[in-house]
Each structure stands twice: as structure tokens, then as C-alpha cells.
């Protein structure tokens, strides 16, 4: 496992940058192939990956190395191949378990408020721009013990609640 971050996400960003800057769009394998790679990687980061995606990525990268016209395209495909070899487990984790162990792939993570730690101060609910946190501010002796919780469907993982929680009750899972 690489230490710098999620390999899938890094590769995706690399290819997006490649498509934007370096790619000349003259030879079909590089032009169509790298766009395909971007598609597949995007799906993987959204936990929509399928098992055959690994085969597609491997096949596409090795074939681009064989067929692309210039070094730029071949280098890009090499980048993917290296990433596949060194961090295969990460890719598989994304596809099979729908989990990103670096907690970077937004759609693979959830915010969770630990009820044991939550003091119901209402700080997180106040900053949440999406109104994704549910709970009632604690009024001593008057209210019940109803810890706050996150509505996953609404949460955009913007991270603002994390910074305001004084007791560190919010976790990424």
C-alpha cells in the first residue's frame, strides 16, 4: 500500500491531467484508450467498479504501450501499469469491498458520529451546508439523550463538521 494516498485517485488525477495537457489527440489508441482508462478509474472510485475492470485496465495499458505513436502516450500507460503492480490490493479493495483505505474516495466513505462521544453541542449541525446532520441540542435535564447522526444520502463529505467538533466524535468510516 502506498503511503502518499489512494493510488486509484492519484492515477485518475494523473490521467485527467494527461488528457488535458499532454495528449495531442492524433493517434487513436492513446486518444481513445486513455479516455477509457479515465472512465474505468472514475467508476472504481465511485464503487461502481466491476471485477473485469482490472483486466480492462491491464489490457488497455499494455496495449497502449504497444500501439501508441509516441513516448507520451506510452509513458502514461506505463504509469498505470506501475500503479497496478505496486498497489493491486488497493484497486481490488475498491472494487470488491467498496472501501478506500485512505479514506480519499468520497463515494466510498461515510461520516459517522460516535454516540458515545457526542455531547450534542449542535456545532456540527450548524455548519453543515447540506442539512445532513440530525439531532437536537442538549438542554440539561430537559432533553433526552439523543446523540446526533449523519444522513448519508445528504452528506457531501465536505469535512466542515470534522473541524468544528470539539470532542472528536465524528469519524470517517
Amino acid at each position: 500500500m502506498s503511503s502518499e494516498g489512494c493510488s486509484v485517485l492519484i492515477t485518475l488525477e494523473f490521467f485527467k491531467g494527461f488528457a488535458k495537457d499532454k495528449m495531442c489527440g492524433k493517434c487513436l489508441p492513446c486518444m481513445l484508450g486513455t479516455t477509457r482508462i479515465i472512465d474505468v478509474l472514475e467508476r472504481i472510485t465511485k464503487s461502481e467498479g466491476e471485477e473485469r475492470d482490472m483486466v480492462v485496465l491491464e489490457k488497455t495499458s499494455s496495449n497502449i504501450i504497444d500501439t501508441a505513436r509516441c513516448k507520451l502516450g506510452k509513458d502514461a500507460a506505463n504509469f498505470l501499469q506501475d500503479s497496478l503492480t505496486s498497489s493491486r490490493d488497493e484497486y481490488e479493495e475498491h472494487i470488491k469491498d467498496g472501501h478506500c483505505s485512505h479514506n480519499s474516495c468520497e463515494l466510498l466513505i461515510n461520516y459517522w458520529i460516535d454516540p458515545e462521544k457526542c455531547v450534542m453541542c449542535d456545532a456540527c449541525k450548524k455548519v453543515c451546508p447540506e442539512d445532513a446532520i440530525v439531532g437536537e441540542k442538549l438542554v440539561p435535564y430537559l432533553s433526552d439523550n439523543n446523540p446526533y447522526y449523519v444522513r448519508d444520502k445528504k452528506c457531501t463529505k465536505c469535512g466542515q463538521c470534522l473541524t468544528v467538533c470539539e470532542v472528536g466524535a465524528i469519524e470517517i468510516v
Partner: protein
Amino acid sequence: MSEQVTVTINGKEVKVSEGTLIIQAAKMAGIDIPHLCYCECLPSTGSCRVCLVEVEGAKGLVASCTRKVKNGMVINTNTEKVREARRFVLELILSNHSGDCMSCDKNGACELQKYAYELGIEKTSFSMKDPGYEIDKSNPFIERNYNLCILCGRCVGICKTQGADIIDFIKRGMITKVATPLDKPLQESGCDFCGSCLAVCPVGALLEVDRRFRGREWEMEETKTVCSYCGCGCDLVFGIVDGQIMRTTGESPGDFLCAKGRFGWDFVENPKRIIKPLIKKDGILTESTYEEAIKFAAERLLDIKKAHGANSIGGFIGAGNTNEVAYLFQKFLRAGIGTNNIDSSARLLGFPALIDLYEALGDGAVVSMEDIEEVDTLLLVNADVTVAYPRVGVAVKRALSSGAKLVVVDAGRTKISEKADIYIQSKAGSDEFILSGLLKELLDGKVYDEEFAKKCGKFEDLKKSLGKLKMEMVEKESGISKDVLKRAAKLYGEGKKTVIVFGAETVSPQTMELIANISLLTGKTRASVLPCLLSSNLRGTVYMGALAEFYPGVRKIDEARNDFEKTWGVKLPKKAGLSIKEMLDGMGSSILGMYIVGADPVTQFPNSSSVAKSLSSLDFLVAQDTFLTETAKLADVVLPGITLAESNGTIVNMEYRTKEVRAVIEPLAETDWKTVTALSKRMNYTMGYSSEKEIAKEIKSLVFVPKKIERDTYSFILVEPKVSGEEPDKKYPYTLIVGETTFGFYDGIRTKNSKLSRLEPNAGDYVIFNSEDATSLKIEDGCEVTVKSRRGKVTTSAKILDFLPKGMFFMPSCHDKRGILASDSIDSKLKSPQHRLIAVSISKGGANK
């Protein structure tokens, strides 16, 4: 010749010349390497990567369309590694190709389909993507479905080299698309609709609109014939399904065809065609049977002949018929009726002045279009090559792209003039001054072939007459400074392989003589001029004797009469024939009967209102045509004619090549040659031919087509420059130039009856103003204007375009009424009217105001 090298391809040894691409070498060895972006007619781009092969010793796979062979190279084109790479690229392309082969017209001829099948691809392993582009069906000819586009770039390449250079790739990556500037429809982007892109597209992204859902390629019956529009005479291959024309294309994908040649054929199947003979009864043309019409026509003509003599009958034939028909026609008139009153549209399109040019320089002087591509200096005189003679235009473009220099003399700012090194925007009608000025500058600047010129006759006289010519006068008449002419003369004179291209119908006979002089002065007598001819069989019509002054083979009446009397077995008339103008003048008095085949003098001939008047004063008029033309409407008997697409025979194109015309569909009416022979038989002169081949045989024995005029001695022709065309005066201060347009053609009878007219703005009914004149006359684009000449007036609409200089206006030659304006005055020697330059006055508003 370059050195031969030996390479081994798939274990097979081949000897090829050095510098050959691997893909070409493989083809020579009989091995077809799959390819999509590569096309023989285009420079390789190496973008599709389908043609990858393994070369022993080379790193990785090699694109065979960009790598040249080396001695001893060992190439394998079909290893598993290669197939895997190809499969990958094809799968990628297929995943982006959201079409259904079931309903695609290219099914069976699609290169993507073919290679996918060969490589055993059942389904792409990538997920399918549908780009979701809208199919562009906005123009009448080319349907563009970019959902099927595989981005091979062939169309982009061919549009650059022989089209209008308007398409290129836009955007990038998966959303790359081929588009015009700002992704506008083709008709709004300056597309010439040459359709070259259609011919090279390997898939179904670009298709002929007419062809959709009318038959697949394997159902098509293909017939090779020759185009019957302009005098280029390009080879065409018609695809026929169920007896209907489905598409037209060149012999190979890189063969250029223009919009007319590729798309202008629906007139052949137009329901307005005359299929049954018509006889005028009580002033109304009514359908009759073929026998009845022929009998009636023959009897009436015989009556006229009996009562007033053979010379009271005349004949006129269009220059778009086959040699066989033209020959029969004049034989019928000369031997059958007994008159030399024969003329053809050739007289309006540069003949017989051109005969003098051919004789002055010899036939070897006419350059072929392939040779134009290799010249280093071109002089274009009044030849809008990309519009009027598009195949010549492409040859010129190709020459320019390999570094040739170009001098253009033309009043109009034509597309080709934008590529000129020196563009001489002459005043209309001042060509003779400009060319005389050029001659003088060639002589004074000592950029001519002195040794050769001295051997030519009248060189001293020429020197003397040019010595008298004042450059100030040239400057005054043409509006061009002598420095420009000096530069042009230097550029042209220093050229090693030079050619002068000019429009035969747009220059005056004196201009042609000056062109001959320039060729002689620079010592260029072989492959040095190209007179561009407007009609498909102009030369053939003239060489078949369809001009009053010549028998077949351009033999003078007096000299050759005995020979022809012997072969045809009849006494031939001694009296010289009349030209069309003389016949028109004599109509009603000395000329009482006319037989007109495949021509519409009322539209084609200048001063058309008087032509119509003359024709109606005839006792009897037989017209034989494909459509009910203005002339046919005046006829007493209309016989159905056929188009060149239904005829068998030969034509002679502007390069003097005899080309074979074949019927691509069953003739809709009786063939022209059968009609002429039937009429002749009824008039007691039997011409017993059983087929066109037999006529061709007789022609060959008599005329020796093509007979070459060879010369070994040359002589200059002394020319006093004059302003050609009608001179403007106070009452008619402007000059109107009649010329060709991209989607119109000559008299417009064919283009108007085909879908081409939909691309011609206002169906050719307009006059082009330049913005300066428009402002001073307070004319806006599209507003109604009246053009008046000494003969008559025409109301039409204005179109503002800076094409001509101030004081000059342009009218398309396919405009129905241009004939009303033009002058029909003829010179006494050549008897052909200079009708393309007309003095006019112009006012705003309709004719009634």
C-alpha cells in the same frame, strides 16, 4: 530510378524501390495490411495504428504506413502480437461507433466491419459509448453521421488537398469530432460539395443522401463512363440499382470529382424529361408516337427543301453530344439534305478561334491535367478553374502545393487568385492589353528563349510592333501598373516548365493569339497551354464537322469535298454554310426549316429575345432535346433526346483524349443516333448503321480521331490589342460579366433540373455587386434590381460580394435571362459572338418602376 531493395514480408521476398512504404511493398507482394487512416491518395498520418506490423530488430511494433523499407528488412504482418494490437485498437473504435450495421448503407463495404470480422471481434470488451451527435441532413447531398465516425482523418486530409479546406478536428479525446469552423452546416461554411470526403470515408459516417436505404454496395451494378458536364471529361463510375442511378464516384477514392460530376445526375431521371415525341397541333404541343413524329418532321422538311432548296434548311447541335451523334447529324444535313448550314454551340464556347491556336502551336502544345501537376509556373488567364473546370482547378492546386508559382489574370477575385503569387485584377475586357504588356516585358526584360524565337516567323515584326506599344496605354486600359507586369513577366519567363491555362469561352480570339505568342517567345511549344473547354464534347463536336466551315477532321469544305463525296456516295453542296447568327438573321426569309439537337439557342445564344423571334418566324422547327427547353417550346415537332448517361459512344475532352461513354441506364427515350437515322431514312437518305460502334468505325476511317497536328515551323501572329466585349458608354456605364458558378452550369438546363440548384443561391437568379457600387447605388443584399443593356432588361436580385472591382457586375451563366442582355454582334471572320462582357446600366427596383 531509385535503387531496388529486397525485403521479406511474411516469408516472401519482394524487390521494391527504395523509399517505398512497408504497406505499399506488402501490397506489391499481394499482402493486404489492414489500415484505416492510410489512403493511397493522401500523405500518411500514422494515427489509427491498425497497420502495425512486426519488423525484426525494431523496437516494438511499427506503423507500416509511415515506415519506409530498408534493404534486408524482415517484416511480419500477421503475428499474434500484431493481431492483438489491432484487435485492441478496433475494439476501442467499435466501442465509440454506435451504429447498427443492419441499417448502414456501407454494410459489406465498410472497412471497420471488414477488419473486425477478419480479426474475429464479436463484441468490444469496452463498454459502448454513444456520442449522441445529431445527424446532419441539412444539405441535399452529404449526410453526416458523426456517431459512426472513427476519426481516421481521411476526410480532413482530402478536404485540404483537393476540397475547399473547411473541415478539421475539433475538441479532444473521446469527444473529438470532425467539423467545419464553428461546427456550422457544410452549406454555410464554403463547402464546394466536391464530395471527395465521401469517397475516402472508410465507414458510414459520410454517405450520399440519395443512396440511403436504396441498396447496398454488393447490389450495385457499376458502369464506367465519362462526365458530361465541363470539358474536363472526368471518368465516372455510376452505381445502379434496379435501373436507377444511386451514386456516382471516381474510379479510385482519390479521384477528384466536382459537385456536378458527383451529385448532378438526378436530372437524368427527372420526371420533367421528354420521353414521348410532341407535335404542335393548334399551337399546343401534344404527345404522339415516334413514327408519326418522324414522318411528320421528314415530310415537312422535304416540302421546304422541294419548294425553297436545301439551303433553306439549317441545323444546330449542342456540344454535349457524342462524336457519333455529331457526325451523323452533320452527315444527315450535308449528304442527306444537302446543305452546309450546320453550326453548334461550339461557336459560342471558343471555337473556331481555338482551331487557329491548335494550328499555331500544334496539338502537342495542349498539356494533360496530370502534367499540370508537375509544372513550376502557371499563368491563368480568365479561367476560374476551381469553379468552371474543377478538375483543372485541382491540378493547379496540386501544382501549387508542390511549389509552383502562379500568376492570375482575371477580373474576378476567384478562389484560386487568393493563392496567386501575382494577382493581376484586370479591368474586364483588357486581357489583350495585359498580355501584350507581358509580351513586351518578356522581350524587354530579356526573359525569353531568343534562340527559339529567332527561328519563328515574323519575330522581327513582333519586336517592331511591341516596340511601338506604349506601356502607358497598357496601364491606362488595364488599370495595372507596369511594375506588376514586369514582375509577372519575370516570374513567368524564368519558369522552366510553364503552362498557360485559359478559359476558351471567356477570352477573345486575339487573346488566344497573344497566348500563342507568349508560348512561342518563351520557347514552350510542347505541353504549354491548356484551353479550358466548358462543354463535355466541344472538341469532338468540332472535329466531327458540326461547324459550317469544316468537314469531319477539321477539313476545309473546298479541299475535302471530293473525298467525302467518294465515301458518302452523294454529291455534296458547294455553297459555304451559314453560322448560327447568319442563320438566325435569315430566318423567315432564306432559312425556313431548322433541326436543333441537344441545344437551346434561345437560352444559350446572346440577344435571346431576337433569337426567339427568329425561330418563331420559321416555317418548320424540329427540336430534339431531353427537356422542354425554351427552344423546344417554339418547335413544331419535339423529338425526345437522351442524356450522355444513356448514350454509348465517344467524346473528346479538353486534353484531346478520346474517351468512351457508356450508357449507365436504359435510355428513357429513343437514342439520338437512331432518331437522326430514322429522320434521314424518311427523307430518302438511308444511313444503314446497326450500332454506335459502326458509326465510330466509319469516323475512324475518315477522321482518324484523334488526329494530331504536328508542327515543326512556327510563326508569331501580330495582334493589335483592343478592348474586348462591349464598351461601356454614358447610358450603359457598367460592365456585366457572365460566368460560371459552382453549382450552376452553362445554360443551367441540367443543374436546374437536379438538386444542385438548391445550393445555388436563389437558383442562379442574381447579380453580384461589389460593396462600393452597392453603396453608391443604394443597393442592399437581396433587393430587387433591374439590369438593362442595349438589347433588353432583366429584373433580378442583388447579391453583395467583393468579387469584381468597382463598375463590374457578375451574372451566373445559368441565369435564365442572361441571353436577353448579351450582344450578338459577330466578327466577320470567326462569326462567334463575344457575349460574356456586356455594357449595362443598373437601377434599383423592378422593371415596372
